[in-house]
Each structure stands twice: as structure tokens, then as C-alpha cells.
């Protein structure tokens, strides 16, 4: 599902590479915990997987397609069609309602619109599954608590059944109890849509929930990250 090989990435005006990965692969439906403190090249890896950064050399195979050889537009479209992202916080457009935020991927990707069946119904279903109170659905995202926002972000990442889910420290803004609940919800829903999940975090305590645990330091042969 995800396969990186012989990948080297260097930021402009930097001497050494920030990523140098010989081999990194996730099987379909696999749920992988990738441990990486900030500064380990984590953001760069996510940018490459998302197709907004292109490696100097190497293959970035997603669903059997090497996205490193696609044009910028095709990579943007690929990302919209096949990948759901959840970030640390501020995932939502603050001036859109929770419901409209969830529906966003369906306006950017015809494929996810089609796979959602009836997007409006699907958005409602996901918000219900992620336990967001009905009276919050049509409130502007800015008025939700951080925990509520993260659940909306998860619903948005899941709508239209993308094959790949990438979560970047999605629980770091939540307290311990809510972290557990959120990860459970995310794992359940990822399994329900059959998505491959790459969960990136520096917090080792969360690793127990996952099929496989990796450390970015172990797979990245470059000396240091970019600091980003």
C-alpha cells in the first residue's frame, strides 16, 4: 500500500540530506505507529507521502503508483483522492461549520464524493460514530473544543473511504483520557473503511494499540532531520 525505496530528500540550500530511507513499507490495512520526535524529518516524510514534496531520488509508491514521477497537479489530485490527513491541531477551517468541514474532501475529490455514497448522510453518520453532539454539527468549527475539533478532523479524514490515513500527532492536544478514546475511535473507523493507517507520534505510550511500531530514527539513515 505504501512503499518507499532508496529515497533521498534534501531541502534547498542544505548540504546533507534530511531523509535517506532504504526501505519503508506498509501493507494494506496495516496500522503502524511511527515514533519520531520533532526534528527527525517527520514533517518532511509526511510532505513526501502527501505529494507536496518530491524526493531527490527514490520511489514513493502508494497503491502501486510511484507518485514521485507524477506532475504536481496529479500528485495534488492523488492526495485528494486517496489520503486522509489528521494533524496535531487547527485541522479545520474555522469559518466553516463542523459538518461542512467534514464534507470538504468530497468537494475536492469526485472519487471520494462517489465513495461516500450520499456525502451528507455519510458526514452525519461519521459525526455520530465519532460521538459529536448533534447541536455542534452546524456550529462554526472555531467554536468547538480542541477534542471536538479533532473528532471532526477524523471524520473529515475518513469520509469517502480513502485508502490511506495519515495522522500526525493527532492526540497531543488532548488529555490522557481523551487520547485513549480518540485512538480507539480512529482505529475502529480506519478498520471499518479498510484504510491503511500511519500514526506518527513522539509519545511511545500510545504505541500499544498498533499492529507494528517503527522509529523514524531506525529507518532514516540521514544524520539529522531538517529541524522541521
Amino acid at each position, binding site marked *: 500500500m505504501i512503499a518507499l525505496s532508496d529515497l533521498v530528500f534534501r531541502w534547498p540550500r542544505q548540504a546533507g540530506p534530511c531523509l535517506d530511507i532504504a526501505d519503508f513499507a506498509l501493507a494494506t490495512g496495516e496500522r503502524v505507529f511511527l515514533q519520531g520526535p520533532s526534528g527527525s524529518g517527520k514533517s518532511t516524510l509526511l510532505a513526501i507521502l502527501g505529494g507536496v514534496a518530491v524526493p531527490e531520488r527514490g520511489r514513493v509508491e502508494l497503491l502501486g503508483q510511484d507518485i514521485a514521477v507524477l506532475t504536481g497537479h496529479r500528485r*495534488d489530485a492523488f492526495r485528494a483522492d486517496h489520503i486522509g490527513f489528521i494533524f496535531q491541531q487547527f485541522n479545520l477551517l474555522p469559518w466553516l461549520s463542523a459538518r461542512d468541514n467534514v464534507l470538504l474532501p468530497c468537494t475536492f*475529490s469526485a472519487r471520494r464524493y462517489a465513495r461516500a455514497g450520499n456525502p451528507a448522510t455519510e458526514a452525519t453518520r461519521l459525526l455520530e460514530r465519532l460521538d459529536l453532539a448533534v447541536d455542534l454539527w452546524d456550529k462554526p468549527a472555531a467554536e468547538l473544543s480542541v477534542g471536538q475539533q479533532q473528532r471532526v478532523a477524523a471524520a473529515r479524514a475518513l469520509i469517502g473511504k480513502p485508502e490511506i490515513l495519515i495522522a500526525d500527532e493527532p492526540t497531543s492536544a488532548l488529555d490522557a483520557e481523551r487520547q485513549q478514546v480518540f485512538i480507539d475511535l480512529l482505529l475502529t473507523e480506519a478498520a471499518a473503511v479498510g484504510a491503511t493507517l500511519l500514526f506518527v507520534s513522539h509519545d511511545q505510550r500510545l504505541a500499544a494499540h498498533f499492529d507494528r511500531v517503527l522509529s523514524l530514527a531506525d529507518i532514516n539513515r540521514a544524520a539529522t532531520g531538517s529541524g522541521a
Partner: protein
Amino acid sequence: MKAVLLLALKSAWARRLTLGIALIAIALASALLLAVERVRHDARQSFTQSISGVDLVVGARTGGVQLMLYAVFHSGNATNNIRWDSFEAIATHPAVAWAVPLSMGDSHRGYPVVGTRADFFEHFRYAAGQPLAFATGKPFAAVFETVLGSEVAQSLGYRTGDRITLTHGMAELGADHADKPFAIVGVLAPTGTPVDRTVHVSLEAITAIHLDWAGGAPLPGLNIPAEQVRKFDLQPKEITALLVGLKSRADVFRLQRHINAYKGEPLLAVLPGVALDELWQTLAMVERTLFVLSALVVLVGLAGLTATLLAGLNERRRELAILRALGASPQAIFLMLTVEGLLVTALGMLAGAALLAAGIATLAPLAQAHFGVNLALRPPSGSELALLAAILATGLLASLVPGWRAWRMSLADGLTPRN
């Protein structure tokens, strides 16, 4: 792409307060620029249309611009008069179809009085050759009869049948010809020319009211009552200027040379069109300065827009990264910012045009009453549309800057903005 544009609208609406302020600045600047253009156009229009159908304007030798100022606009004073025999010599020239004498120097409550002949109303043309029309009454026939321009009658509230007295000189409180009142026998229809501001009387009337005067003051001890003036020879000895119409326009330069070389006294003949252009040129610098200033105000308004968008960009870094993660291309981000700026410019511009229209609708009666300027609501002229297009084009340029910056930003940030 449609999705991104729709989001751009929603995002802009979320920031409507700051964008609204930029919009108001653009609206005011656009309204100012359009107003200057409108006034410029209208002033030029009413100026160049103030006289037509007259081939030559003749006066004592002076500057062409000065001659036009006093003979057509009744502004300023003639330095010298023309002798009556010079008028007759020109009027009887074989190339001349008609000649109308004009005699100036008196006023009525600030409005200039012009002594002429009744055929003035027949020969004078304005705009595209329109003749004068009487709103009420008829041309003067007797000595103490007068015909008013429309503005004189309207602003002073006169009707045909009323009586008025004239004042010596142009001052509102000059020595009075109160002993010889005039009956208003006609009021002209509005023309938008200096005729509207003129009190017309016969040449004989001018002679009559000055019979018992010498050197600009009443002669002490001499008082000739109005009913006795008929006993005197009222044939004027001098006039101020004359308007000449030719049988054939082809003769105009020949006759101009003939008059300018007239042996009897030094005279000047000018072609009104040429002289008006020359006069307008002297005003053109003011007009151009105003225009440049208001164009600069528009630039300031648009620079404000650029600043607003750029300042907002840092706060929206996260928003742009989210859109990127959802699949928006850097081009879409660029378009989003540029369209936002363009939209604010376009709305501001339309608001400016609406503001101008509202202003004209409100102020038109005041402008007519106080300045005699005729402001009319009308769809934008070609040059106004060109100005609007120029504002929009400049607004596009101003919006490209934040658009370009957002593009660069989204390329550098990827999915995780560096704050």
C-alpha cells in the same frame, strides 16, 4: 477549482470586517476618480458647447482668450470698445450673412446685462447648432423691455411681466439705474451656456440708461425721465463686441485677416472654436492635476488592499495548509488570493459608482442652484468605463502580490506551516 473559489468566497466573508474597510477605501477612491472625470467631461462639454453657428467673434484688439471671456462668457471687462461705424463696415461686408452687436458693462444682481438686437435670439446657436428657445414670452421690442436667461429668472424668481432695474458695472451694489425699470417680456429656455446667466436688453436701452450719465456716474442735476428718452438719438456710438455669421464658411480666414487689418481702428477677430480650445488648454492643467491626484488616491486605496491581504496571509497560513492537505494545488491557492483581491476591487469599484450616482442625485439641485452646473445621472461614458477597467486592472496587479506570496508560502510550508 470551483470548490476553491467557493471556499475563497466563504473565507472572505469570514474576514468581511477587514476586507470591508479595504473595500470602502476603494469605493471612496473610485467615486472620487469618477467624479473628477465626470466634472471634467461635463465642464469641457458645456464649455465647448457654449457657442456654435457663429463664425467670428470680433472685439477691440486684445488677446483671443480675453475676447472670448468677455464676449461669450461675460467675464472680465473689455479694455476698449468698438466704434459703431466699424460694426457697420463689417456688417455690410459682402461675405457677411449677419452680424449681431453686443454691448456690456451693466448688471442685474450680479448677472451680466448684454445690450444687443432682437435678431440675437435668431442667430445665436449653442451645442450642436441648437437655436435659442423662449420658455415664455417673446423677444424685446421696446426700449425698456428685457429677456432673461433661464437661470436668472429661476434663481431670482422672475416671471414675464415683472419689472427689474439694472446696476451700473458688475458689482452687486453699484450705482443704480433705478429711475428706468425694465419689463420682462420673455424668459429663455435653459441652454447650459452663459446665455442662461444673462439679462438681454436692446442696444438702445443701454444708451438710454446712460443718457444722464458721464464717466461712470450720474450727472448731477441732470435727470432724464424714462418717458422722455425717445426724444433722444438712442443709436449707440460704441459697442463691446460683435458676433458674425458668414454666407460661406470658406471665407472665414479671409474675413478674419480683413478685420484684423481693419484701417479704422485696431480690431481682433477670432474663430470661436479655436479660441475655446485655447481657453480650455489654460484650464487643462488644473483639470489634469485633479485627475492625477484622484488617480493617486485610487492607487493608495489599492495599496491598502494589498497590505490588508498580505497582513491577513500570515494568520491564514494554517488555512492554506489545510486546503493543500485536502488536495488544493499551489495554483488554486494563488487563484484564491488573487480572486479575493479582485473581488474586493470590483465590489469597491461598483460601490464607488453607486456612491457617485447617489451623490449626483442628491446634489444635482444644489449644484444647479449655486454653481449653474448641470449634473445629470446617466450611464457611464466610454472614458468612465475605461477608467473602471483601469481600476480593475490595477486591482488585479495589486492582488497578484498576495496571490504570489501565498503560492510561495504554500510551496514552502507543505502540509505543516512554520509559524
